[in-house]
């Protein structure tokens, strides 16, 4: 894993949140909060793949597991901020919404966008993760000893 400065930590966090969002969710939240700003494409949405790697034994040398589909794009707002998106799946309009949010988060409306888009996304993703973890926890085995055979 790469060393990253703290200056990137926040952006990393919101880009991850945007990449994991369910289909159409970012657009819905964004459009409910504001009219989309004007932008020009630096790279129009493009579908491709990423080779996913694992490590032998979980910790050893890397190997290729297989690819996953990814959509990426980049855009510039009229105010100059550059937004990037790399998101799982084949979702061009979701990539556009994610890049817009990424750009907006670097400008004056960052606070509003965080409140309207990122906070709800984070809450929904935590809730979904917790719900699954709680179902898993209910299947945890509680061993108890019936009788010991040592007299």
């Amino acid at each position: 894993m790469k060393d990253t400065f703290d200056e990137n930590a926040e952006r990393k966090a919101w880009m991850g949140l945007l990449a994991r969002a369910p289909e159409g969710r970012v657009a819905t939240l964004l459009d409910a909060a504001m009219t989309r700003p004007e932008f020009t494409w630096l790279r129009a949405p493009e579908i491709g793949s990423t080779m996913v790697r694992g490590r032998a034994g979980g910790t050893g040398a890397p190997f290729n597991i297989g690819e996953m589909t990814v959509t990426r794009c980049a855009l510039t707002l009229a105010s100059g901020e550059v937004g990037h998106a790399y998101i799982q799946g084949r979702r061009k309009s979701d990539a556009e919404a994610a890049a817009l949010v990424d750009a907006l988060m670097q400008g004056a409306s960052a606070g509003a966008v965080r409140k309207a888009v990122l906070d709800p996304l984070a809450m929904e993703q935590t809730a979904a993760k917790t719900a699954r973890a709680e179902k898993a926890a209910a299947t945890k085995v509680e061993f108890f000893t019936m009788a010991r055979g040592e007299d």
Partner: protein
Amino acid sequence: MYVAVKGGERAIESAHAWLAEERRGDTDVAELSIAQIREQLKLAVDRVMAEGSLYDPDLAALAIKQSRGDLIEAIFLIRAYRTTLPRFGSSEPVDTGAMACDRRISATFKDLPGGQVLGPTFDYTHRLLDFKLAADGGVPEAPTRESIPGDVPHVTEFLNREGLIEEAPHDDTPPPDLTREPLEMPADRALRLQALTRADEGFTLGLAYSTQRGYARNHAFVGELRIGAVAVEMDIPELGFAIEIGEVTLTECETVNQFKGSKTEPPQFTRGYGLVFGQSERKAISMALVDRALRWEELGEDNVGAPAQDTEFVLYHADNIQATGFLEHIKLPHYVDFQSELELVRKLRREAGADRVPEAAE
């Protein structure tokens, strides 16, 4: 003499039209949607993603629908589609230690930190047909219990505190990629693992079973089996740092294997490793057993001549798309090939005197 013939077009068109009709089946029965396949035939979707070597549940579901449920045909469709995609890059190796586990069991330690979590398993079901599923109906909600957040440590980590188990030391050698370079021997472990994770489940299972029955027996225990979601991170050159680009569900199996020691290694437990897209535990366990068998050379074990020890045999026959491509091509027209064979056999028979009309018994 080679004679080009034409004339199959109409027959082929009609065959494909009929295929489309047969695929749809009785139109009085509701049509399957991609979402239904993705949600309700999830393990088929997972197998198509693993062996198709492309993680995209919607595409895998579409392939299953198009192939009428023929999973190898579906895998073929996914492999073909995959080749059309530009490659943006490779991910950082996923951290399975940080997996959000749906299931996590160990057959070697009863009381392990994090516990035995069964997850949505077929184990302990009675394998009796459930006729309730034939009728429409809701399902009761699964029970929940408070969960303790935090990473779940790998079992091998704490077994290793005693130094009883072979280590998998950190290494950042870039792995070879058989989707870019032809698969050639000798194949190092990274290449073998890539070939095995996309290998045919049935073939891998058969080989793994052969090691259990005594062909290169290495007495495997499932040290740990876990299924769950892991984050996928990729370095983005235009940003200058790595970001999460999504999440994949993986099945990971670590076996611990009895090992008496060899000329080069002390007596210890050795390891086999399986890591597969989706919820695919039969495949992950099989992969781990075959991985371990193929490691005979680096562990200084004897080659007992078992199929599962023969890297070339295993890797060159494990890919069901290569196999089915070569196997099924023999049903396509070979009129000219066969014509020359026919000539040859006639000639040989003439020479052997076998072309004479048999006479009445002498």
